[in-house]
């Protein structure tokens, strides 16, 4: 048995030499969901990163602890990566909207308009931020509607268009899941103040 200094590992009772990993028959990875975080009431939802999950409800459970276990949080949106439409990226001084024009109507029956959440990236390397919602017949149309509504803003390096019906949000009544988060000070650098102890030590040992 593998001996370990870690009592948890010792209890796993692993063999001395690990057997070769079982070859995997199939791809075994969940799809990803993108997560957006609101730090206080009225603040814009901002992109924080992805989680791997089998479904949106599990993605939310994961996102809550991966992206909001520190500091205040008042809301979180979770959306399948595959549901997001995005534009190409342009340079830091430019606007994506310069290349966006009205959608030429097709012969197909027009789709029922629905809501889309629009996210802008203002600078490469920063995070996408929600600028608002638009109503449109398609994601492409939503981008044009976004240009009409938010096109004055510059620069806009990249735009994400999220069909609102794909976004998992939290019932406002359940926002108390974050109530105690800011009080978990043991997770914060600010809780560790040790300078007094060092000064006292120096005085006692005559090194000061």
């Amino acid at each position, binding site marked *: 048995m593998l001996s370990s200094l870690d009592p948890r590992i010792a209890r796993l009772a692993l063999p001395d030499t690990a057997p070769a990993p079982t070859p995997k028959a199939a791809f075994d990875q969940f799809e990803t969901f993108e997560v957006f975080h609101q730090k206080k009431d009225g603040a814009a939802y901002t992109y924080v990163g992805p989680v*791997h999950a089998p479904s949106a409800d599990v993605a939310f459970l*994961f996102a809550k*602890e991966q992206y909001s*276990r520190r500091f205040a949080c008042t809301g979180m949106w979770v959306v399948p990566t595959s549901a997001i439409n995005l534009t190409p990226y342009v340079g830091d001084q430019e606007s994506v909207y310069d290349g966006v024009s009205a959608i030429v109507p097709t012969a197909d029956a027009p789709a029922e308009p629905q809501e889309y959440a629009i996210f802008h990236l203002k600078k490469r390397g920063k995070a996408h931020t929600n600028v608002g919602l638009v109503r449109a017949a398609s994601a492409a149309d939503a981008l044009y509607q976004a240009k009409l509504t938010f096109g004055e803003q510059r620069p806009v390096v990249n735009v994400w268009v999220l069909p609102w019906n794909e976004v998992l949000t939290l019932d406002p009544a359940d926002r108390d899941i974050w109530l105690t988060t800011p009080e978990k000070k043991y997770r914060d650098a600010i809780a560790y103040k040790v300078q007094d102890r060092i000064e006292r030590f120096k005085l006692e040992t005559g090194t000061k």
Partner: protein
Amino acid sequence: MTDPKKDLLYRLADDQLILGHRNSEWNGLGPILEEDIAFSSMAQDKLGHALQLYSLLHELGEAEPDTVAFTRNAAQFHCSQLVELPIGDYAFSLMRHFLFDHAELLRFEALAASSYEPLAQVARKLKGELKYHVLHANTWIRQLGTSTEEALEKLQAALDLTLPYALGLFEKTEAEPAIIAEGLFIGEDVLRAQWLENISRVLNQTQLELPDLSAITPVGGGRHGEHTEFLQPLLDEMAEVFRLDPTADW
């Protein structure tokens, strides 16, 4: 122990400490990175609850939280035997989390109306935190409880194994009549009935079967200091560093 407040607090706090400790054993070894993080947060929360409850005990004249947590032996602990069992496989740990946290949520909801105001305050504060814990447990039990044969088998085995111990969560002590009479807490019988309803509702949405309760003998003893063979080694391990130098400030 005669003081009903202390009796109640010790049972609450010891459960939280020991289960928080157990669940922390998964940290870094969980089945999915994201789940590893979520499960660790909930274990940390449980330790946070224990600390708050031991602090209330300290205000009532008991020793410092660290002393109470790290220097007693098994016979001095009032936790249920459910929380001291080893972590087993993930099905076992999830099922224990499901059964325990449902009881915990209801317990703290009731305590929010306790006549002992400091405890009621703690309970009110924790409502949202516990809501997430139960949401987490329910989602997992629903997901896995409607999935593969393999998962169903593991979860059913975990449920069969943990249920008698979970019923031990509601074991009463001699302080029970006073606890109810003083309005500290609604009492274990009421809690148990609500709990059964809530876990049944979730289990009914899965392919798992709740065993026939009339055929089960609850495993008690923990509230009276009778424990499994697993608690004392757990406490020895937890206090290994703490006891290296009793005069030290770590």
